[in-house]
């Protein structure tokens, strides 16, 4: 069951509604995984707006010039944040989806590896970047995303996710970069 990050203390009143709007689908994509489905959040305009607002309030005025969103659910949350804070939006994609010149970062899956790509020239040295995805699990994908941005000379300010699965300890994988999440799911 998803609950707000700080339990009962000092929780923004919007968090409860956001957590309640997330649907858990058992045994997806395979047995044993309790999938955190944010599509039900997207069907609740107020919850979706509150989600975006919470991120925007945190980052506005902090000189963030880039919001990088991880394909595909990071494409849903990243752009509204980017638009509200006046930052560029950069899609980080699975291999061979981005046209033109890309840089590529491999990461490890439970079985095998995968790869994330970013356009050459999307980011300039000195850009201050957020990485956005719907959820952090093991942290592998977020790590790959941060590496891409740092290789291009950007400074990753923070990773921002709607949901964290704390038992998978993804936070520890982030090389000391801060992580901000709205709800934890145990």
């Amino acid at each position, binding site marked *: 069951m998803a609950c707000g990050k700080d339990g009962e203390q000092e929780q923004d009143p919007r968090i409860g509604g956001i957590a309640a709007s997330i649907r858990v689908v058992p045994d997806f994509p395979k047995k044993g995984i309790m999938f955190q489905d944010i599509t039900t959040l997207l069907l609740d*305009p107020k919850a979706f707006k509150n989600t975006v607002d919470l991120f925007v309030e945190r980052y506005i005025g902090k000189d963030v010039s880039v919001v990088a969103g991880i394909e595909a659910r990071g494409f849903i949350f990243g752009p509204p944040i980017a638009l509200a804070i*006046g*930052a560029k939006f950069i899609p980080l994609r699975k291999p061979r989806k981005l046209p033109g010149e890309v840089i590529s970062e491999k990461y490890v899956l439970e079985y095998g590896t995968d790869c994330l790509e970013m356009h050459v020239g999307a980011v300039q040295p000195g850009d201050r970047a957020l990485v956005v995805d719907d959820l952090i699990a093991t942290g592998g994908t977020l790590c790959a995303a941060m590496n891409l941005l740092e290789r291009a000379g950007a400074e990753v300010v923070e990773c921002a996710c709607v949901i964290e699965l704390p038992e998978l300890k993804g936070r520890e994988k982030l090389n000391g970069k801060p992580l901000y999440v709205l709800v934890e799911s145990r």
Partner: protein
Amino acid sequence: MKEVVMLEEENGVVDPRLQAIKAAIRVVPHFPKPGIMFNDITTMLLRPKVFKDAVEIFVDRYRDMSISAVAGVEARGFIFGPPIALALGAKFIPLRKPKKLPGEVISESYVLEYGTDSLEMHVGAVQPGERVIIIDDLVATGGTLCAAINLLERVGADVVECACLIGLPKFKGGCWLNGKPVYVLVDCRQ
């Protein structure tokens, strides 16, 4: 029967926002294969004002049309659909490639140049009678948008319009999809 509306020129006056949108789109030759001039919107996303203007043009159009849901086609429809949905106070419905959506889905096949693909939507995402717009970055053959229209109509939704940033030249004047109007901001750069 409604015609495709190409917004570039209305009454002979070109909206400067549209010129900026068109100029911000990058053409990448021979992607994903030889002969295709790929219209890349990622360069537009690097220009916050231009991205914002594109969203605003759509929002201004649909603001008073009682739209209760915006459906976006994976993956680039996920970039444009949500900001429009948020501004309209509407639901956002992701239409996805097979096996990505968890739980119960309905599925619609469509034809590719070689073979077929399919698009899925969650059961229960939209109710009968809801007024919906469909968003994607670009319309080419219209195959994907047609599949999207079918998915929504099968559950009884009222597809008001399909909206894309870019349309291939064949959409200029007189084409529509499944009887639904298609609204396009700029034509394809070649």
